[in-house]
């Protein structure tokens, strides 16, 4: 057993000594209830319920439930949520009571000037939580999107501190963390591979999603298992009032959602599906060319996914939530050489949550979930067949207790346990005549458990702490690991409009992504911590200052962070990652550092909303000489490919009138580091008349490509159909047709007549030119 005790004594001391033991003389009562959408009665997690005069407020939990303890007397409540019209309500509090709110949607046909969301900025100023980005699916749908495909993860890439892994991809690289260090949760169930089409689209269908919270640092104690970020995705509950159908027809895919009440005001459901149709076009192209000599058919490719959610109120105190996701990517082709290749991959996710309120101050959420990511490659040639597959399957249970002890303390306690099954590679080769029969399979199991406790302690109106401790453990076979992860955050209100914040978080990651591609691929394998594969660890400190400006319409935030990590994972040059029963030997371990400054100005009220972000950041890695290997980059420090020095994003949304929303976004990032061969040599080989140039690579990622920038423009035009609602969403991606660098390669220039090599040259490849698209959306 390896116990990581760093900061243990300090954390325990702080935690135990600060446990609430205070009595209160003044009479206080608890106000609690649920914040819902007036349109469809769905709950609004993250909605703000505040008493501005007292400078206090709370955020609704994942069930839309809020609870606020206030002194007896008259109060003016402000209820707000992004995308909804704020409400104010007078209240004379003489006893503890339930009071629920319904917020109308902000944008509607009546066309009044929309005042929304000022309370959310106030709430953001007041909370101890820093380094978090909240995104509502409704906002994301207004923004211009590549191929018109709304993608919440790509919208998150427009926030400071978040990089993409390459043009158009949905991978997230948060504050110097790699793509496998993000915890993707879909209604509390883990999603291992969040992308379709090799990372170009995320698995999160915006029609099924309510909101996404991205934690970049200052991680609350209830989250763990990944080093760099938490992407907490909440799905919609569905319309509890009436049945409805909505959907869209886009350039590359179509979507359909059905929702409605199970029992009116007691439960609702939503079913959402989408499918791409590249294959419809490619099959036609192949058919047209089938008589063409030497024509290589375009492979079939499509993806589809389904989301399902149901909730049912068992009584005043109990509610059940059932979530399911099933998605597959399918890729296949039949070569002219008679070789069939079929490749499928995808996630299957399910969760069932029971929410129970013991009292207006004590809630319990218990979730059982399962997640499975698998890929399978099946090849066939005449009588011979070959298949390669991998799978990770988890069963998990977690229980979270929220106790609003008094108006100074909110306690959170929780436990979780997960059973992992890693099938890191199953190979089989066979022939129908029995002359060939080879099989290989490597399976590991792992058990992960955690327990946490945290307290949000409001010391005074000015000072607030959130501190906690998370105990985590992992075992795989006879190898066991355990660790304590202290977490802490504080907020000090310098003035009613200015907050200072600071946070610290330690994170452990016990499962590792086996990939040497530098990008997330469907064939990536997850691997457990074992004797020679230690858990990854990171620590992050961050400080920030927030200013509420312009009568609360703007929030200006500046954060500085420093993150350091150990046991970062890479692989030996030429590592054999497929069907390797001794994968341990291929790992390399190193250190990582990331630091930077993020400046963020956002506006959420009025006809014009949006944000401006700027980050200045450094990310470094080092993998020293080890285990018979020269490490990575001969042990020298290097910048990973997702290191970007400067990153500027500007996002604007403007409601021109009742029917037209205009949107625009601008992105600028410094050039990505890459490795170009510095030299070459000629290799003749044993036989043959060709001589090949073999590149020699210098230190890793020492060359910077040209900077990246583009503007996207969008317009949502509301139609006036006889029934229901519909709109046309226009997008122009890369509006000024910038040829952004995607990668650079060197090629030989040959004399067309003699075939002799006359020169070598460098070529820059761009991925996406200007791409206009239109999507038709409907709802009835």
């Amino acid at each position, binding site marked *: 057993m390896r116990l990581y005790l760093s900061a243990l004594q300090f954390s325990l001391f702080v935690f135990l000594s600060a446990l609430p033991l205070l009595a209160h003389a003044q009479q206080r009562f608890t106000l609690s209830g649920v914040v819902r959408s007036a349109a469809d009665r769905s709950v609004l997690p993250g909605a703000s319920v505040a008493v501005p005069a007292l400078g206090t407020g709370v955020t609704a939990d994942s069930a839309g439930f809020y609870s606020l303890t206030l002194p007896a007397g008259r109060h003016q409540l402000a209820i707000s949520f992004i995308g909804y019209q704020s409400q104010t309500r007078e209240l004379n509090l003489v006893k503890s009571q339930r009071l629920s709110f319904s917020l109308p949607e902000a944008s509607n046909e009546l066309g009044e000037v929309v005042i929304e969301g000022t309370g959310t900025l106030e709430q953001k100023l007041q909370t101890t939580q820093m380094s978090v980005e909240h995104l509502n699916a409704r906002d994301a749908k207004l923004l211009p999107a590549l191929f018109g495909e709304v993608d919440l993860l790509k919208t998150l890439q427009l926030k400071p501190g978040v990089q993409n892994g390459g043009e158009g991809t949905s991978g997230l690289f948060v504050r110097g963390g790699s793509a496998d260090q993000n915890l993707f949760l879909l209604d509390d169930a883990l999603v291992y591979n969040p992308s379709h089409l090799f990372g170009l689209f995320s698995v999160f269908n915006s029609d099924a999603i309510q909101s996404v919270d991205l934690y970049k640092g200052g991680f609350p104690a209830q989250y763990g298992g990944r080093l760099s970020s938490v992407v907490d995705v909440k799905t919609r509950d569905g319309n509890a009032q009436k049945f409805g159908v909505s959907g869209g027809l886009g350039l590359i895919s179509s979507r359909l959602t059905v929702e409605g009440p199970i029992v009116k005001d007691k439960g609702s459901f939503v079913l959402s599906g989408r499918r791409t149709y590249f294959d419809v*076009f490619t099959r036609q192209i192949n058919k047209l060319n089938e008589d063409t000599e030497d024509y290589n058919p*375009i492979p079939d490719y499509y993806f589809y996914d389904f989301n399902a959610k149901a909730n049912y109120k068992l009584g005043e105190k109990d509610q059940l939530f059932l979530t399911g996701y099933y998605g597959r990517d399918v890729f296949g082709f039949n070569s002219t*050489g008679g070789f069939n290749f079929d490749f499928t991959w995808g996630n299957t996710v399910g969760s069932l949550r029971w929410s129970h309120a013991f009292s207006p101050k004590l809630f319990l959420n218990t979730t059982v979930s399962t997640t499975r990511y698998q890929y399978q490659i099946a090849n066939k040639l005449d009588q011979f067949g070959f298949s390669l597959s991998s799978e990770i399957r988890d069963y998990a249970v977690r229980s979270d207790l929220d106790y609003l002890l008094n108006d100074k303390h909110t306690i959170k306690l929780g436990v979780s346990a997960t059973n992992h099954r890693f099938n890191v590679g199953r190979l089989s080769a066979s022939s129908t005549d029995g002359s060939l029969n080879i099989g290989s399979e490597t399976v590991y199991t792992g058990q992960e458990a955690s327990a946490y406790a945290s307290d949000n302690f409001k010391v005074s109106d000015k000072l607030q702490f959130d501190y906690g401790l998370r105990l985590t453990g992992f075992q795989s076979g006879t190898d066991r690991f355990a660790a304590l992860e202290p977490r802490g955050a504080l907020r000090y209100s310098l003035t009613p409009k200015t907050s200072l914040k600071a946070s610290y978080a330690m994170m452990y990651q016990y499962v590792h992504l086996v990939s040497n591609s530098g990008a997330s691929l469907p064939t990536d394998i997850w691997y457990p911590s074992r004797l020679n594969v230690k858990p990854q660890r990171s620590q992050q400190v961050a400080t920030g200052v927030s200013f509420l400006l312009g009568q609360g319409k703007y929030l200006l935030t500046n954060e500085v962070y420093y993150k350091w990590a150990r046991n970062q994972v890479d692989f030996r040059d030429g590592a054999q990652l497929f069907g390797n029963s001794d994968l341990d030997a291929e790992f390399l371990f190193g250190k990582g550092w990331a630091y930077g400054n993020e400046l963020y100005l956002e506006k959420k009220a009025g006809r014009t909303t949006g944000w401006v972000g700027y980050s200045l950041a450094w990310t470094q890695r080092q993998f020293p000489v080890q285990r018979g290997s020269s490490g990575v980059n001969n042990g020298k420090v290097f910048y990973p490919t997702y290191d970007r020095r400067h990153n500027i994003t500007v996002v604007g949304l403007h409601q021109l009138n009742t029917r037209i929303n205009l949107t625009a976004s601008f992105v600028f990032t410094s050039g990505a580091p890459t490795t170009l061969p*510095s030299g070459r040599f000629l290799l003749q080989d044993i036989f043959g008349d060709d001589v090949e140039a073999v590149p020699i690579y210098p230190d890793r990622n020492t*060359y910077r490509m040209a900077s990246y920038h583009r503007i996207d423009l969008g317009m949502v035009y509301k139609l006036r159909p006889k029934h229901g609602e519909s709109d046309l969403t226009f997008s122009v991606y890369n509006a000024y047709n910038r040829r952004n660098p995607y*990668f650079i390669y060197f090629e030989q220039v040959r004399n067309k007549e003699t075939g002799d090599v006359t020169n070598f040259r*460098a070529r820059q490849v761009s991925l996406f*030119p200007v791409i206009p698209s239109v999507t038709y959306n409907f709802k009835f």
Partner: protein
Amino acid sequence: MTCLLPLTYTLLKSLRCGAVAGLLCLIFTGCNLQKDIDVELPAVPSQLVVECYLEPGQVPRLTVSETVPYLSSPTPTLLTDVSVVLTLPSGQKEAFRFTPGLDTLTQKFFTHKGKNPLVAKPGDTFKLDVQDTQGRHVTGTATMPALVPIDSIRWKFNDKSTEERRAYLLVKFQDPAATADFYRLQIHKDSISKDPNRDFELDDRLTNGQLMTLGTSYRYSTNDTLLVTLYHIDQPYYRFLQSVNDAQNANGNPFAQPAAVRSTVEGGVGVFTILSYNRKQVIVR
């Protein structure tokens, strides 16, 4: 392992690029998404490059060149100040002569040549020493692997019309159980002086001691004359071949990590190995 495995690995490596490229072709046919750019590459000192494949019964030949900046002129420089010494298993040293020329059998250019046909049997170890007047010094050691004979070569035609009728080829051989073994299979059409039609290397990690089956897709026509060569190679040469492939694939693949070439020699770049192969000729009919 079956014939499909190497092809599958290659496909996986190029899959994402291919899929993205396919999607782009579909949508932006006609868009020019590439352009020439100027890049400034760091200057690195040039190293000696050695390429030497010893073969029993053949007079040893060796090619010495040097690494050059990637974007420099493609015209190679002939190094005239290099001395080469081969140490035989007996300890006897044989200095190679500097006699640049073309090997008519292999169609390979060489710079240095031994005196006598090589005498070698499996297990014999040779040493190579290459030096120039600038102080660059490359050394290498290689042991001749045992011969692994080809057990059988078979083919089967598809059911298509005469013009499209093609056969796949299956090559079988017995892998020795006692050792970790590495192979290279080359299939030449008509003559070994041309580039091979199929060429891949593999190990016996998953198939140790078994009857190995390697093959191709439907690609051979009636009356094709095929020269099938099975090399039993040592691990350093296997790693060298793989690393050369990886290095070449990394140029132009945004998802590949740049890979260093793992030479079998020290002090420079290149390969020194002793060939142990079994070759059979078949006419597909």
